[in-house]
């Protein structure tokens, strides 16, 4: 006879208030990803540019011969732009299967039979991408700012460029939100994460190719709003108070990204349901 009763017992312990299930989903998703070596390798690789920039800041603040490397707003802007490459790979690796795999395994009806709303489920999944992408954009950019202060031994640069911290934060959030929601929406459209990855790559590269063709014909960058990455670059220039690189109005870039976020939200609202009805 076992010492411990292995039969079914009623539970009389504590239960959390509803509204926090998204955190359970996010935590489990992040833990699952960090258990994969390939993903950890990708994350480590994405921090290499941070190391390069840290060395640059060290040299600029400590070596008089390296003054031409002195950091400015453009350096932070360029750093975040470079991180978009890693954002792409992390988004595809971590995001493609977030909802697609659940749809393949009929997990949505399991999730939504628990005390959580569809919004909580979506936010939980989004929080996974949000935290991972901020880990390769916002966090290293802010750390570069901190390192600059530490290496320089003064707040002079920081105080002269007070706009940098909010600019890094706002631009990172715009990048991560648009990319993350678009990927989640695409993930909800299919049961195959590979197919979702291809769809996402298509969204990025196809819009860029269309703009490339239009630009080569017209010789003008007014139509850069056709490309999602170009829209983000334009927004980045505006947020970091730099000369915009494309001849399109700033509002058009914001409008396209806003539209992308709205369409993604609408797709998610329609696709994330406990029952799939084919009428």
């Amino acid at each position, binding site marked *: 006879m076992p010492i411990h009763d*292995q*039969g*079914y*017992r*009623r*539970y009389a*312990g*504590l*239960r*959390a*208030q*509803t509204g*926090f*299930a998204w955190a*359970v*989903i996010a935590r*489990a998703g992040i833990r*699952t990803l960090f258990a994969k070596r390939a993903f950890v390798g990708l994350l480590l690789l994405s921090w290499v540019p941070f190391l390069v920039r840290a060395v640059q800041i060290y040299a600029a603040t400590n070596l008089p011969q390296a003054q031409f490397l002195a950091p400015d707003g453009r350096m932070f802007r360029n750093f975040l732009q470079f991180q978009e490459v890693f954002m792409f790979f992390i988004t595809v690796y971590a995001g493609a*299967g977030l909802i697609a*795999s*659940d749809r*393949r*395994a*009929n*997990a949505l*009806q*399991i*999730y*939504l*039979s*628990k*005390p*959580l*709303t569809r919004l909580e489920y979506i936010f939980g999944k989004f929080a996974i991408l949000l935290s991972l992408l901020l880990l390769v954009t916002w966090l290293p950019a802010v750390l570069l700012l901190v390192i600059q202060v530490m290496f320089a031994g003064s707040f002079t640069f920081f105080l002269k460029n007070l706009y940098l911290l909010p600019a890094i934060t706002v631009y990172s959030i715009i990048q991560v939100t648009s990319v993350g929601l678009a990927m989640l929406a695409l993930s909800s459209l299919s049961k195959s994460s590979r197919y979702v990855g291809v769809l996402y790559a298509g969204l990025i590269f196809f819009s860029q190719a269309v703009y490339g063709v239009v630009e080569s014909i017209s010789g003008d960058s007014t139509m850069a709003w056709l490309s999602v990455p170009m829209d983000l670059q334009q927004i980045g220039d505006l947020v970091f108070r730099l000369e915009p690189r494309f001849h399109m109005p700033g509002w058009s870039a914001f409008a396209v990204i806003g539209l992308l976020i709205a369409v993604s939200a609408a797709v998610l609202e329609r696709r994330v*349901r*406990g*029952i799939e*009805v084919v*009428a």
Partner: protein
Amino acid sequence: MVTLDSVTVSYGTHTALKDVSIAFETGAVGLLGPNGAGKSTMIKSLLGFVVPNQGRMRVLGLDVAESPLQIRAKVGYMPENDAHIPGMNAVSFVAYCAELSGLPRVDAMQRAHEVLFYVGLGEARYRNVETYSTGMKQRIKLAQALVHDPDLLFLDEPTNGMDPKGRDEMLELVRDLAHNKGVNVIVSSHLLPDIEYTCTRVVVMDKGRVAAQGPIDGLKQPRGQVFELRVKAPGGPDGFIATLRAAGLECHATDDDVMRVFVPGEEGARRIFAMAAAEQVQVRHLRPSVPTLEDVFAQAVGEE
């Protein structure tokens, strides 16, 4: 325990539930009906997956439209088809479901182990769910529905795809939960023996409507006599069956060459013999029988 008041649910042009009003009593209740009768739709409506076109529903005293989360915290749902969280082993999956239901992490893991032992997956609890057999997947679905200790369990076709031994064990678990562990259970199935073994009450669904309901024993009470009958007729038994039905006798064929005839009132076998003589049909076998749930089901849905 559960009430539906004039509930209608439509998928496009197809109406799955038609103005259904019913009250489920506490204990173990079977939801019986052929495929497409509206059983799963009823459960999914009660969970809030489907919004009814009209009507109101209450589960455990709470309105489904107003308090879906409070209801889902108190109920467990075992879906009909294969469903799991991908990329997890059994104990992680079940503990994850417990955490989603609000249990603290340590309690969730402890409950997961206990429930997995209870459903018979103790030895396989560290295996990835995707490697499980069909029977094991049925058990893990029960475990995830049970882990947060619900007051009410919705089991949608719990023995689907199970071998006979596994099926018996699953039915034993359901019966134990309902009769010994104080968990209210609504079992949806098209298998009469499953309902008869696990439940004390039954709701028979047909074409989106409630065809019959009540205690199984009560529904099986004879309001006449039931006979097993085998005949030899010149043109086959179909003509005689039609004659019996035309005379108001309920008659349905079984798997064997035997038909079951329900004769209301006290006339019994005498009436069958008289009709057989009139039709020049030889009665080769006639034996009084006791009503089964199958008879109740056949009467309720008018099965031929």
